[in-house]
């Protein structure tokens, strides 16, 4: 128990000293395991984890989904998505910011990363909002907040990693993210309305598009919509009917998605041999980075378990007589605090091995908890001082002060809290769809 807490503290220090997360967790995990068992035991645990993780079938979803997002983007999806959203919403007050939110939601349905969603959409949406005289705070905030949807609306790299760490069904986790994701879009739209209600100058209306323009814009994204329906529908089991009887495992869904995205990008002329190659290489590098961290996290979590931290925590909670809901609120508080300083993935990897056993033994649903954690991580992405999405945006629009972005984000942050409260109060919002999967 003490060993685990010391280990946790050492990881925090090493990570802050900029040792790559993978090595910090691996080092502490191995030394701790050595302390609890023997050097040989620790070494053979580490060796087994390295070899097994590298050859894990389930993990192949990660590169395939990353690839899908990158390929679709080469086909110019972000631009087309923004155009469609604009054609339908642009004539409202704050319409361009609303279009940004919807386009971010759409992009999230292909891309599994919040940072990538924010980075991509900022390049498309920011110039438009500037052209129409949107205030810097509203335009940047809508991108930063909209971008957070990337990890909730499937596919999601964070949910894949949560699923693998906790042996929870990735397919069900993905499906569970849909309703909270859509809820997020609507609440963000509400936040935009609220912002322009308070300050009408922040987001003037754009021009109204004709139905002809709208339909033309829709025709630009139908293939991508189809791809999403195919991938997520296949995962959900929607095609498991006569005459095809087709249900995808997450890996198959990801493979179909990547191949489909490749074909779409190819047909749109967005791909050359060179850009295909660089996309593949980029994906491989990102994958390797994620795997290194995963291997480290697994080593660390083996140590945490053998040191008995989860049991000790459970014993403590039982002794103190907290109700499960109180414990959940305390865990969320820990996440909010850690989220202020930590990057999303490292926060997840450090905390899930500790909290997950506690949460499930208190009777909470593992899928529900996964979604709750992701929503909290989303909130942390736009929380000062280290809201990562805000910094991604800052990289693209360097002339806007960070404080301005954070100020604009406030209404979005507040509706995020409302969403979290709703999901806590009504778990069915998360669990209804996955329960239909059987």
């Amino acid at each position: 128990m003490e060993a685990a807490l010391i280990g946790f503290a050492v990881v925090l220090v090493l990570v802050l000293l900029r040792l790559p997360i993978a090595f910090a967790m691996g080092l502490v995990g191995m030394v701790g395991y050595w302390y609890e068992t023997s050097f040989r035991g620790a070494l053979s645990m580490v060796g087994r984890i390295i070899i097994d993780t590298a050859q894990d079938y389930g993990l192949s979803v990660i590169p395939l989904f990353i690839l899908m997002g990158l390929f679709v983007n080469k086909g110019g999806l972000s631009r087309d998505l923004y155009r469609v959203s604009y054609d339908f919403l642009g004539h409202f007050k704050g319409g361009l910011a609303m279009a940004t939110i919807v386009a971010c939601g759409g992009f999230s349905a292909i891309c599994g990363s919040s940072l990538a969603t924010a980075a991509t959409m900022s390049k498309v949406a920011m110039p438009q909002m500037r052209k129409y005289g949107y205030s810097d705070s509203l335009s940047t905030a809508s991108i930063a907040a909209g971008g957070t949807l990337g990890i909730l609306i499937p596919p999601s790299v964070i949910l894949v990693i949560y699923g693998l760490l906790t042996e929870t069904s990735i397919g069900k986790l993905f499906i569970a993210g849909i309703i909270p994701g859509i809820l997020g879009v609507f609440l963000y739209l509400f936040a935009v309305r609220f912002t322009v209600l308070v300050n009408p100058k922040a987001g003037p209306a754009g021009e109204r598009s004709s139905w002809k323009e709208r339909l033309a814009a829709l025709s630009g994204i139908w293939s991508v919509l189809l791809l999403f329906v195919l991938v997520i529908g296949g995962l959900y089991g929607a095609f498991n009917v006569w005459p095809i009887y087709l249900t995808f495992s997450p890996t198959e869904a990801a493979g179909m998605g990547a191949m489909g995205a490749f074909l779409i990008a190819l047909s749109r002329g967005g791909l050359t041999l060179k850009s295909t190659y660089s996309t593949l290489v980029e994906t491989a590098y990102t994958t390797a980075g994620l795997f290194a961290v995963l291997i480290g996290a697994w080593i660390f979590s083996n140590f945490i378990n053998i040191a008995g931290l989860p049991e000790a925590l459970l014993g403590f909670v039982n002794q103190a007589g907290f109700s499960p809901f109180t414990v959940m609120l305390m865990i969320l508080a820990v996440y909010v605090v850690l989220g202020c300083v930590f990057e999303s993935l490292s926060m997840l990897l450090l905390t899930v091995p500790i909290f997950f056993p506690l949460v499930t033994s208190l009777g909470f649903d593992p899928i529900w908890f996964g979604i709750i954690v992701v929503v909290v991580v989303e909130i942390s992405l736009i929380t000062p001082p280290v809201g990562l999405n805000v910094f991604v945006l800052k990289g693209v629009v360097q002339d806007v002060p960070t404080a301005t972005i954070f100020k604009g984000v406030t209404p979005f942050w507040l509706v995020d809290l409302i969403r979290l409260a709703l999901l806590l109060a009504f778990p069915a919002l998360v669990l209804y769809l996955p329960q239909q999967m059987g």
Partner: protein
Amino acid sequence: MSALFRKTCLYAEAAPAALAAIALFTLMVMTFMDVMLRSAFNEPIEAASELTRILMAVIVFSSLPIISARGTHIVVDLIDPLFRGIAVRIRDGVIDIIAGLLMIWPTMRCFTLAERARDFGDVTEFLNIPQFYIIYFITFFAAVTAIVLLAKGIITLFIPSLLAPPQERAETMAPAQEG
């Protein structure tokens, strides 16, 4: 000198990068074909699962030395502003050396496991590919990663002139996909 060094590094990167790219493309096409064949002809590719495992090992481990060399491991850069000038160099050099040293024991362990798999004659289920090939592959690239990290740490500390200025080394990767 530093230009020559950079060029050498780029050449050294090319082969493993190409290997990773080809493996990934193969994985994508194979998964697609597997689903297609299964749904249309009820004839899945039986070896798909074991090939997926092998391809994953290739993708991850051939990329590992490259991301280590480029320094694009996932890090927390919260207190970066506290380090300036020579402190940055010392920190980065020491970190690389620590990381390199850390790779040594697992690499040796992987080698032992590979030898063991060879002695036992472990093979994959459908294609009878000997397991030890894959574990040797992992071991080899783990060793390369260790050497790369150690070399990079030593160069950063003692021969910094070899390394390109940071602004030319940045932007090797798109915004991380992890968050």
